């Protein structure tokens, strides 16, 4: 093993559960001590990739190297360094203490067990005095997920993978999970890989984001990915139907199922419906989240339009002038030519 080797190196990986491959990755690297986000719609292959990265499964074909060493048949040893937080937490039918202590017990590490369990519970905002003795059925969904996170953090893994960790928890638990993830990374240089469909949340916690669509890595960053199918429309334009009878217009695609990229800076926000404007795409929506973009300090806004969430960036001044806050009804505007084919 070399400290300079990438943590993961995937080459010509293909994996699937039926006749078709759900995941096709020609080449993919993850550097050590990074924090990476995987974003994409449901069923795009994020969870499959996480199962491969957590050594729960080996791909049907292709190679994986971990810290410069080719991964072979003995996955059990590797799973001691890598752990995965599942989307839906599963707690053992035991107390919270025993759930968090389980990983250490099976490794035979009983030294200062009580202190370490209490420390891990503190990391996820569960006061040990109140929660350590509770049974598995005495927890809310958010608390159960935090216990699940604590039972992984206590292992101080080299890699912490999280599959939609905040998808089914309350905002308070989501914030505490986010804090715990940042803390463990700062304390132990843990590499973090998080799959989520919430780009804004991912952007606030990870160094970089890759996009997955139909089992393929289609890009990096916070671009909007708009998949097909596309159909011919009027004025030499092509359109994709989204929800409530709305359409997204684009120039002619290379193929009917082509994937288009829409950069956030090409999307404008209006508080009233624009009337005299050349842009073809005017969609009504509601602001879901605001976040300060890491790269340039601009405000990154996620707007939920019928059938698709779009990310756009505006200046701090524009956000203040237009009073852009979560819940506000707005219009997103972009030109058909702004959609770039992958």
């Amino acid at each position, binding site marked *: 093993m070399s400290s300079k080797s990438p943590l993961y190196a995937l080459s010509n990986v293909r994996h699937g559960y039926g006749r078709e491959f759900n995941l096709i990755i020609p080449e993919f690297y993850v550097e050590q001590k990074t924090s990476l986000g995987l974003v994409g719609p449901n069923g795009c292959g994020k969870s499959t990739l996480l199962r491969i990265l*957590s050594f729960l499964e080996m791909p049907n074909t292709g190679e994986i190297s971990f810290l410069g060493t080719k991964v072979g048949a003995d996955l*059990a040893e590797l799973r001691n360094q890598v*752990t995965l937080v*599942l989307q839906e937490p599963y707690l*053992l039918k035991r107390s919270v203490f025993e759930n968090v202590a*389980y990983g250490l017990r099976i490794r035979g590490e009983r030294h200062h067990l009580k202190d370490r369990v209490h420390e891990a519970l503190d990391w996820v905002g569960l006061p040990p005095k109140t929660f350590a003795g509770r049974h598995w059925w005495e927890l809310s969904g958010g608390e159960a997920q935090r216990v699940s996170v604590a039972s*992984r953090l206590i*292992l101080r893994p080299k890699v912490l993978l999280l599959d939609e960790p905040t998808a089914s928890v309350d905002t308070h638990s989501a914030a505490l999970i986010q804090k715990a993830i940042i803390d463990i990374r700062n304390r132990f240089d843990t590499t973090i890989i998080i799959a989520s469909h919430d780009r804004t949340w991912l952007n606030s916690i990870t160094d970089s984001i890759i996009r997955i669509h139909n089992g393929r890595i289609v890009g990096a960053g916070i671009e909007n990915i708009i998949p097909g199918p596309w159909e011919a429309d009027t004025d030499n334009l092509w359109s994709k139907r989204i929800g409530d009878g709305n359409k997204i217009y684009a120039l002619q695609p290379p193929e009917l199922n082509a994937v288009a990229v829409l950069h956030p800076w090409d999307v404008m926000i209006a508080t009233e419906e624009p009337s005299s404007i050349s842009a073809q795409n005017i969609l009504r929506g509601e602001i879901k989240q605001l976040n300060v973009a890491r790269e340039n300090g601009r405000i990154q806004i996620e707007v939920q339009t019928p059938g698709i969430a779009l990310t756009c960036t505006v200046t701090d001044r524009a956000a203040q002038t237009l009073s852009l806050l979560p819940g506000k009804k707005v219009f997103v505007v972009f030109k058909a030519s702004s959609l770039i084919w992958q």
Partner: protein
Amino acid sequence: MDYITGGFIHAIQLLLAGDPQTFSAIATTLKASTLSIIISLLIGIPLGFILGYLNFPGNRQLRAVVDTLLALPTVVVGLLVYALISRRGPLGELGLLFTIPGISVAQTILVLPIVISLTATAIESLDRRLRTNLLTLGARGKQIAITSLLEARYAVLAAGVTAYGRAISEVGISMMIGGNIKWHTRTITTAIALETGKGQFAMGIALGIVLLAIAFTINGILSTLKRKTA
């Protein structure tokens, strides 16, 4: 109706006075059934676990055989065991006929399919996320198997309690293998059958009350375990 009411009153008097004959039948029942349940749990839980946890060739066929044996009539078990342990039988030298251990052996054969089948079902019914969860925490083969059995502990205990209920209430085996010998192999159920035949309702009702009390206790335990399994 008077003889029934009288029977009830006399039954309470027998229980309160600690009638030796009544309590001898209760003790015999508890001894035979407890011994049979201990043996069947020791054999049945590992077999049920293997059947529910491992996927091997013939698993489904074996499961079908075990499930069929759930409906084994007590008199058939009694007949088979009698043939084996009677003086002329291959195991006649063990001297088990008309003894409490003899009853226990036959009851074990009766309840073993219950323990195996319900344990296998308990293991099969475990949440699919359990294995993934344990793998992500670093557990390996034997650790996953033991933790899986512990996760199913309430359902496995419920299997034991169900089997105990079956053993304690059966009459065919106790009658055929035990021989219903007073002070020796007379159980609650054989005593009820005998006393009713003689028209002596008091002792029959007294023993019936005890059997019902045991059944209620078993059901109480079973519902608690089922709640914990849910």
